[in-house]
């Protein structure tokens, strides 16, 4: 009975929303978004604060935001404050998981014994994934990716070590320090912007030519910070989930 009621409620709600969106002349249909009416056209043209004649890959110098990847420009430059909040959410939930599940418990024993080949193979893979994670973090302003997936890749390389080695436990203390130092770096970067330019979190480095590795001012630095921070936070979450009480 309850299920039928819930089903009816959900169906009616869905129909109302869809009906409302169809009748809505302000709401563009799927595939017809009008960027000219939105702030994001300025993000693509890089003319939110200054005029410029156009953006050309590998040529345009010192744009207001120098990341070739516009999404990265928004995440780490135009709306960097959101990203600071996002890092905070991950920080507090990793701290919360540690608080809820408690420390210094024994880790779960695996059902199978990892053999020699598995150990060697996963160590090789560990190195490859770690490198990929770092690469993705550093190239966030040029290619898809960035600090968050990069950090998650770093964490998943740690996960691999967990699965391959029965005795392995990450050095929790080291992660904690890394997490804390990286967070403080982010704040200090913001405060440095406040000192130098008068705006919290403002980019105060040269943007360089669009599309080169050493461009986009603070963005690669921010993404390395985020990558390491996210990596250590998620690793500590995984470590806590792999622990259990008693034997």
């Amino acid at each position: 009975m309850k299920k039928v009621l819930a089903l009816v409620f959900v169906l009616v709600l869905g129909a109302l929303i869809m009906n409302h969106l169809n009748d809505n002349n302000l709401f563009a249909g799927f595939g017809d978004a009008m960027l000219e009416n939105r702030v994001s056209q300025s993000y693509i043209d890089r003319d939110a604060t200054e005029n410029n004649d156009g953006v050309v890959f590998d040529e345009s110098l010192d744009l207001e935001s120098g990341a070739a990847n516009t999404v990265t420009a928004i995440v780490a430059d135009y709306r960097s404050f959101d990203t600071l909040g996002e890092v905070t959410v991950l920080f507090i939930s990793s701290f919360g998981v540690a608080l809820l599940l408690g420390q210094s418990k024994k880790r779960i024993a695996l059902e199978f014994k990892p053999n020699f080949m598995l150990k060697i193979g996963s160590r090789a893979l560990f190195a490859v994934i770690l490198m990929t994670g770092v690469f993705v973090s550093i190239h966030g302003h040029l290619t898809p990716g960035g600090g968050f997936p990069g950090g998650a890749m770093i964490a998943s390389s740690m996960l691999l070590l967990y699965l391959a080695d029965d005795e392995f436990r990450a050095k929790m203390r080291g992660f904690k320090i890394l997490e804390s130092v990286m967070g403080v770096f982010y704040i200090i970067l913001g405060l440095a912007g406040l000192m130098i330019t008068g705006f919290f979190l403002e980019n105060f480095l040269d943007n360089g030519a669009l599309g080169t590795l050493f461009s986009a001012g603070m963005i690669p630095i921010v993404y390395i910070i985020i990558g390491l921070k996210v990596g250590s936070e998620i690793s500590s979450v995984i470590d806590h989930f792999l622990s259990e009480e008693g034997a």
Partner: protein
Amino acid sequence: MLINVLEIIVSILLLLLAFLALSSKSLIKSVMFLSSLSMLSVVAFVLMKAPDVALTEAVIGSGLVTSLFVFTLLATRKVGQKQ
């Protein structure tokens, strides 16, 4: 038109997987369906030209979240048992 057909197929599969994840009796199967749902949403993101989101969802959404679910179930020794 190939893209359009692909969109329709992906949409239907998404809904099917969500339904399976919710209705499956075994928790571990539900988690696996959620993981494939998340993997399929990566395809949807790629179709909508969002490579950044696709990469993030692939690594974080379907990889890490699934492993967290599995570890929770592992720790409580409920894997494979019927609920």
